[in-house]
Every structure is written in structure tokens, then in C-alpha cells.
């Protein structure tokens, strides 16, 4: 088991967004997270990456690294947690003043203090992996949405995380650009990356997931293999949600 999360809770003031989440991610597995708007999917991913600090919950990784949010969590632990995962945002959040290549090299060179000579070929290979070998020197505003999101993926991969987190990576894209981004994620799946992906693309979820997790109101309502959760859900609420997406 790569990561186990127990009793994760997060509130913003009075609003309890995550009430009690238990979750396990196995090494090399792909967990997709579905659920209605406002159910806490983004908040869950952000907690995994310590962009939000949970109020409660214990994260334990297979290498023995453990964070218990009921105690005060040190800066070092937060940094370690961030080192373990790479985040891909819905709105890309590329650095607009840096080229595609510089976006990718920034983490390895500035944070990990690796040498330029070593990082540039590595970053180039990542951009090649996402199909952007001919766009490396362009700035974000010179790229299409799909291309920007692929740079975002390469930037996250560059810090060599153990877990990749995707928050609706295609929902800001024009329909004809969705495919190119999903293809990159599928390639990563084939390479054996461990990933957690929030998505509304049920067909994609069915193709790549090992586990599908349905969230509502800050709880995990149902989780299991895609054949179960997407095709034959046990819970009535899961069934209703899927019906609504298929026949809006």
C-alpha cells in the first residue's frame, strides 16, 4: 500500500467540507474521484498535497513517513509531503514569464538544486513525453490550453514525485483538446505511475481506474473497481449521480 489516509477532516470556518475520509492508494494504482460539485474533491486533493492543512487525519506512506494532523505539523513534514506528490491544476497555473522548458526546469534547478546540465536534457525528455518537443521555447500564452496543460503535467513530473494528483485536468479545455491531455495521462498509467485524478470524464475513468471513489457532502459514499462503481453501483446516490452525468 503506497498511502493510507485515515479520518481526514477539513473545515473552512464553520463549513465542514471533508467530514471523515478514509482512503488507500496502492502503488501503481490509479484512483479516480468523482462526485457532484462542492462535494470536496478538490479539497481532498489539496489536502493530500498540503495546499490545505487538514484539521484531522493521519497520512501514512509505505516508506514509514507519517503525518498526524491532530498534532502541530512541522514545516519539514509539509515539505516532505509536497515532495511526494506532483499537482496538476484545472487552470494549469503555468508561470507566464517562463518558457515551457523553464516551467519544467524550475523545480529541479531551484528547489532540488540539481545542475542545469543534468536537468535540461531531463526536462526536454519530459516535454517530449507529453508531445511538446517542438514547443519548448514558447511562453504559456503562445500555447493552446491542451498544450499548456501538458506543460503543467511535465512540470509536476519534473520533481519526480511518487504520486501524481490531477484536479479536473481537462475541464477548462475545449472539447477537441481533451483527448490529447487524457492520452498523456493514459501513457503515464501504462508506465505505472501512482495517480489520483478528479474527473467528470466517466468513460476515461472507466478506462484508466483501478479504483473509483464517489464523494458526496464530504464523505466517500462508495469506492471500488470501475466495473462496480460506474456500471453497477451499490449505493443509490452513486447511481443517481452517474445517471445525471450520462443523461443530463
Amino acid at each position: 500500500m503506497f498511502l493510507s489516509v485515515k479520518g481526514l477532516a477539513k473545515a473552512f470556518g464553520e463549513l465542514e467540507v471533508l467530514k471523515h475520509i478514509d482512503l488507500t492508494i496502492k502503488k501503481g494504482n490509479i484512483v479516480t474521484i468523482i462526485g457532484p460539485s462542492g462535494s470536496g474533491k478538490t479539497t481532498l486533493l489539496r489536502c493530500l498535497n498540503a495546499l490545505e492543512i487538514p484539521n484531522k487525519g493521519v497520512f501514512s506512506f509505505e516508506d514509514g513517513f507519517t503525518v498526524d494532523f491532530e498534532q502541530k505539523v512541522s514545516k519539514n513534514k509539509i515539505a516532505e509531503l509536497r515532495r511526494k506528490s506532483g499537482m496538476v491544476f484545472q487552470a494549469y497555473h503555468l508561470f507566464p514569464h517562463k518558457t515551457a522548458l523553464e516551467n519544467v526546469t524550475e523545480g529541479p534547478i531551484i528547489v532540488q538544486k540539481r545542475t542545469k546540465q543534468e536537468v535540461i536534457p531531463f526536462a526536454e525528455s519530459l516535454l517530449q513525453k507529453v508531445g511538446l518537443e517542438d514547443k519548448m521555447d514558447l511562453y504559456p500564452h503562445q500555447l493552446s490550453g491542451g498544450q499548456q496543460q501538458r506543460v503543467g503535467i511535465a512540470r509536476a513530473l519534473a520533481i519526480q514525485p511518487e504520486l501524481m494528483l490531477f484536479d479536473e485536468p481537462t475541464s477548462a479545455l475545449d472539447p477537441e483538446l481533451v483527448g490529447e491531455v487524457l492520452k498523456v495521462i493514459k501513457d503515464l498509467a501504462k508506465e505505472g505511475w501512482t495517480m489520483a485524478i478528479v474527473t467528470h470524464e466517466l468513460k476515461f475513468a472507466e478506462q484508466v481506474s483501478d479504483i473509483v471513489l464517489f464523494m458526496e457532502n464530504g464523505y466517500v459514499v462508495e469506492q471500488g473497481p470501475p466495473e462496480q462503481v460506474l456500471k453497477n453501483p451499490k449505493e443509490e446516490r452513486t447511481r443517481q449521480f452517474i445517471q445525471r452525468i450520462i443523461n443530463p
Partner: protein
Amino acid sequence: MEHWRKSLRNGLGKMFPNNLLLTITGDMGGWELFKNSLWPMMLGGIKYTIPLTFISFIIGLTIALLVALMRLSNQKILTIPARIYVSAIRGTPLLVQLYIVFFGLGDIGLTIDPFPSAVIAFSLNVGAYASEIIRASILSVPKGQWEAAQTIGMSYSQALRRIILPQATRVSIPPLSNTFISLVKDTSLASLILVTELFRKAQEIAARTYDFMLLYVEAALLYWTICFLLSIVQDRIENRLDRHVSR
């Protein structure tokens, strides 16, 4: 260096005899007076107005960045002093600030020369106004940029230096240029604490010749020229920064 200075002095000395100010008299014709006053005023500009502006602006920007970061922090120990400083400077006339530093401190035994007094007062003044500009420009950078920097492992100061400030700079250049150009003009107030800058020179000559209109218009033209040149530089910088970031 010394050699270069000497030959410059000799060259200029021929063009503008050293005792020029004394040779300017009320009997001169308008054009002659204008011409003969030009160099003393420009010299005041080169020796005092321009250095005073640049030094104060650079120190002021440093203060401003610090104060902006203090105000953006979430610790009262930092935000409160920063707010008081900005409010006090913005709520009092620059001339009064200048007098407090020069005459006021002198009165309580802390005598500072005119030029450094002016530098202190102008730096503190710029620090307050520019801190508001810098704070707003940092806030104008989308939150997602901080988050993206954090997710690749950057610390606060790395994110600030590498990701946020370069983007904030673009936003802050036009208002900071205005602050700079205002500062050029405000340095004329230093004439009141005996800094022999451009405007003080005009006053000195006017006191001898009584040609107030001619000399003050001449001073105005000189300020205008400096500010005009600066606005050209500003346009260049903006164009440069615009090349890559289109929003």
C-alpha cells in the same frame, strides 16, 4: 579616472567660466541671461537633483518592499508598525517631513547635512507610497501562482523571488514610474533646506537679477526635459516586459 575628470573640468571651464554665477547681472538681455543661467542650473541638477532622486528612490524601494511584505504577513507585530508608518507618511506634508529631519533633528542635537537629510526624508516618503504600489501588485498575481510554486516545493522566499515578484514588477512599473517622476519634481523642495539643487540655483540667480519669470520658466523647462526623458525610458521598460507576458 582623475585624468578624465580633469580634462572634463578644463573643457567645461572654457565653455562656462568658474565664476559664472557672479558674472550674471541684471543688465543682461533676456537671451543672454537664459544662456548664462543654463549651466549653473544644470549643474545643480547633475550634482544634486538627479543623485538625490536616484539614491532616495532606490533606498525608498527597498523600504517599500520590506513594508509591503510586512503588511502582507499575517502577524500583527509586523502589520501594525507597517500600517502606522504608511499612514503617518501619507498623512503629513513632505515639506514638514523634510523640516523635521533637517531642522527638527538638528534642534535636538542630531545635526545632519542638508543632502543626507533630504535623502532620508525622500526615501521614507517614497517608501510609504511605493509600498502600497508593491503590495497591490503582489496581490494582483493570481493565488494559483503561489500554489503552483508551492507544489513544486518552493519556499516562501523562492516563490516570491522567482515567481511572484517578476510578475508583480510588470504591474507595478507604470505606477512606480509615476512615483519616480513625482520624486524628481519633489526634490525641488530640498532647496528649502539649503541643498543647492536645480531650483535653488534658479532662486539664487533670480535673487540677483529679479528676472523671476524667465528664470523660473527656465527651471520648469529643465524639469520638464528630465521628466520627458524619463517617460521615454519608462515606455522602453514597459515594452520590454510586455514581450512575454500577455494577459
